């Protein structure tokens, strides 16, 4: 005898959890299925090495939508964001650029390189704040369909147009630039200090297969400025207990709302009868029935694996096949016996509670990208490192530390060898690059976990290992995400929906796709 639910959510990543919670909140009987033993997808904390908690994949929080935090009362369920307020860029010549919470200190630091930049930095921050506010509206709406003649769609487009015109001419120009330029070109219109430009432009390459000089990277830059914590834009934070705490908070809220959360439950196939979803069948053969099925997985899995491509129109199948999920990022998690000691700023200090960015010059990152273009991991990669245990002592035993290193570039496919054989060589390249600035690093490493895009695909099912479930390129955004004509969370199979990062507004721990999908589903159910 098979169980029956109103809705079944496939995948227990943060978007799946948010989606399930919103559906349950509307009174639906919801079951969520996660293949792993643990919820969270890429939003997990795991004790990989005894006593050391790693935010294995995603490691900082900023983009989580405030309305979701309110609606799901996440603070009550344990969401605690500790501020991550500074960025240190160590330089090969032993110097450094430090940008901290105190604007005057930051001003002084940047002035050592250029007073002009120090002044521009404030205006830049303000401009990006304006832009983040400008696009905030888009994060909250379902993408309209520009090809439809339905008055609803025209109205949505009209409202969109009015919103943009409302920004005023100058803001609009800046927005167009951000949508189209390379992050380095965009930043060079503001700044002249190369390491500063490099460090800022790095936000434009994170998670994408682009260099800081590639057109399109400025959008990714903007995407990382959309963060908002307690109403403060572009504030980045760190979840107490590691990123997994975010998923746990959402899960706990979902549970309270009545969602049944099942782990170690890998879905094999979508069940459908004459064009209508009827449930799912698990790999263990169990059949679970529901009139609504939502996949938070990437489109290749949602459409080509779970669903039966022969049930789908060719244009969708082609679009999904062409959907770019080629991963570019790796992760190296370190358990450390002591605190890292930086050559440029020896000893303890505020800089250890912030991000340490290995981005000495724009060319450095471009060269790293050049390696990846031809199927090699970067010999000298860009690294964004943080030491969570400095902010949250519970992450590691007393006196010991964990260090999380986000690395680019690590191409999903290697020209020579495979990731099984290259993984540790990649790890060495990362540790070597870091050691140049953190002399004591090699001596204090107790354990090292190296993750390539391929590993992410293996472990959490991200096809291609793309951390956004698909490139954030103009061709894959808004009404084109994940596929032209299928950007409104629906699929050609009635009752089958998508709610992952591969849908608008895209990747990062935003929860927005999960929420927007839920709103669309509820709209359909009310009909």
């Amino acid at each position, binding site marked *: 005898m098979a169980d029956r639910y109103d809705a079944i959510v496939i995948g227990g990543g943060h978007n799946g959890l948010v989606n399930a919670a919103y559906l349950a909140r509307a009174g639906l009987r919801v079951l969520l299925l996660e293949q792993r033993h643990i919820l969270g997808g890429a939003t997990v904390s795991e004790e990989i090495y005894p006593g050391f908690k790693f935010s294995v994949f995603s490691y900082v929080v900023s983009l989580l939508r405030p309305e979701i935090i309110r609606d799901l009362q996440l603070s009550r369920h344990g969401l605690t964001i500790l501020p991550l307020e500074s960025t240190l860029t160590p330089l090969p010549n032993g110097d450094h650029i430090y940008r901290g919470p105190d604007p005057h200190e930051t001003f002084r630091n940047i002035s050592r390189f250029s007073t002009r930049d120090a002044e521009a930095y404030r205006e830049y921050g303000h401009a990006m704040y304006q832009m983040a506010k400008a696009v905030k509206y888009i994060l909250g709406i379902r993408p309209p369909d520009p090809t439809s003649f339905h008055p609803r769609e025209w109205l949505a487009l009209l409202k969109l147009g009015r919103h943009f015109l409302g920004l005023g001419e100058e803001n609009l120009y800046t927005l*167009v630039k951000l949508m189209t330029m390379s992050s380095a070109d965009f930043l060079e219109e503001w700044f002249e200090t190369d390491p500063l430009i490099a460090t800022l432009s790095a936000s434009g390459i994170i998670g994408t297969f682009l260099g800081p000089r590639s057109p399109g990277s400025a959008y990714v830059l903007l995407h990382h400025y959309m963060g908002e914590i307690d109403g403060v834009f572009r504030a980045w934070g760190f979840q107490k207990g590691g990123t997994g705490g975010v998923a746990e908070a959402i899960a706990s809220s979902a549970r309270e709302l009545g969602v049944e959360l099942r782990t170690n439950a890998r879905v094999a196939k979508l069940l459908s009868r004459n064009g209508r979803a009827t449930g799912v069948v698990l790999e263990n053969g169990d059949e679970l029935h529901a009139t609504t099925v939502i996949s938070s997985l990437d489109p290749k899995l949602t459409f080509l694996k779970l669903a039966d491509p022969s049930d789908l129109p060719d244009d969708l199948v082609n679009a999904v096949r062409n959907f770019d999920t080629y991963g570019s990022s790796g992760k190296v998690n370190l358990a450390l016996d002591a605190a890292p000691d930086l050559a440029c700023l020896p000893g303890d200090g505020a800089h250890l509670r912030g991000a340490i960015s290995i981005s000495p010059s724009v060319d450095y990152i471009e060269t790293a990208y050049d390696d990846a273009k031809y199927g090699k991991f970067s010999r000298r990669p860009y690294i964004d490192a943080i030491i969570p245990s400095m902010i949250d002592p519970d992450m590691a035993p007393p006196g010991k530390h964990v260090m999380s290193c986000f690395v680019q570039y690590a191409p999903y496919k290697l020209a020579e060898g495979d990731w099984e054989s290259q993984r540790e060589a990649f790890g060495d390249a990362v540790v070597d690059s870091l050691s140049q600035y953190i002399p004591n690093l090699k001596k204090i490493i107790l354990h090292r976990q190296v993750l390539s895009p391929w590993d992410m695909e293996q472990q959490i099912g991200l096809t291609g290992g793309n951390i956004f479930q698909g490139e954030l390129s103009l*061709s894959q955004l808004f009404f084109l995400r994940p596929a032209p004509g299928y950007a409104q969370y629906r699929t050609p199979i009635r009752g089958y929906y998508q709610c992952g990062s591969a849908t608008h507004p895209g990747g990062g721990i935003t929860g927005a796709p999960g929420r927007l999908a839920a709103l669309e589903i509820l709209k359909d159910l009310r009909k």
Partner: protein
Amino acid sequence: MSTDFDVIVVGGGHNGLTAAAWLAKAGRKVLVLERRDKLGGAASTEELIPGFRFNTGAPDAGLLLPRIIQELDLHKHGLDFVDSPVAAFAPQPDGSAVTLWRDAERSAFEIATFSASDARAFLAFQKQNERFAEVIASLAQLRPFAISNNSIRLMTAWARFALGVRRLGRRDMMEFLRVLPLSAYHYLNEHFESDALKGLLASFSTTGLMQGPRASGTAFMFLYQQMGGANGGYRSSLVPRGGVGQLSSALAHAAQGFGAQVRTGAPVQSILVASGSVHGVRLSTGEEISAKSVLSSVDPRTTFLGLLGAPQLEPRISCRLRSLKLRGSTATVHLALNGVPDFPAATDPQLLTGTIVICPSLDYAERAFDDAKHGRVSTHPVLEARIPSLLDPGYAPAGKHTMSMIVRYAPYRLREGDWESRRERLADLAVETLAQHAPGFLSLILDRKVITPLDYEREYGLAEGGELHGQMGLDQMLLMRPVPGFIGYHSPIAGLYICGAGAHPGGGVTGAPGLNAARQANAELR
């Protein structure tokens, strides 16, 4: 107040001459002022080597808007085209070759010899590109709209355009919107498997751009280059009989026929402005000529920071003009040949009458760009070579031939050394690269001339050697072209217009900026 002329057009390139001819036809009193002692600008045919004539800039006029030929009767003024059944011939490292024919079917047949699936994909791909290229061609003839208070007329024109896009059908429209910001790399990989074919097709997706085929927006350039209509899947590349320069002289004749005056060897030193509106120009000789309006076909940075002068502009505008991305990335090598080069891969000598392309793969093109990105000349350059004398004897003495090679990438700013010291090195690289596919090629070379981005700046007046008068990335298009604050062909100075490649739709021998600017100026002429 009475003025010497209604309109002065600064610069006698094809866009300037198009504007002049159109305005003269409309009954305006027009004067064209060209700095060099010959017309044509970057669309010229010149005797660089005694007895040998070369297309020194643009290798063809394939993108020219047909309506310009009709409206200005250019055939009557001596314009006609030399045609080759071959679009492109691309010898490969393994000794084989890919040929694209004007006749797409024949191209597909050719492709089938090395990839059945690519051959199948090719025809549909090319038909789609033709449909998209048509949309871009109609876009090219529209004036960009402003963010606010546009004229009803302009809005209706755009509405008509939108309807045209809509008429593509739902699927095509979405695909069009998806492809515009795409990279040529992704666009081609989505359709084809063969490196040789993808490389050949990618070769023109970065024309004039300081970008590799992986860059977003290069799919747009790929389609833009096919505006001229069907050409067997390759970029449109019809050459005027007697050389590209013939287009300029035909335009000049047309203009003069309509009563315009054309002066060469007349460098404009400054554009004269009084109380925010233009009233003429001053030549380097000191001579002042007054006019109601001035159209400049010179690149925007030179026009406004050089001829006009920053003090005439708001600081934010002049600042934007300074950061306008020109980024010349193309050099040309012109060779006098003592015979036809022998390409073993060319089973039929006719194959050499199109464009000879050296670009065996997408990665080859990307690596060529990587060098330029880091301020170096490409060690393995992408080459587009033509031997116009094969179809048109006028270029060279009997039995001899001329070859013009476009060499990518040649960055205007070299990280090491300067162009004086690198010029010959670049030429050596180019001819040696070609010689790998044509044994004995070097021994055919009688003489050679190299034009670097720096030469294009100095001799042809292209700032930074930027043939497009501003990179044609998505960030410098439509209302962002040439820089935000300029709407359509207007400048912040009343009566001063831009009619060159720096204006919408951009570079290439299209005549579109000249035509559009002329129509706008004519409508607004006091």
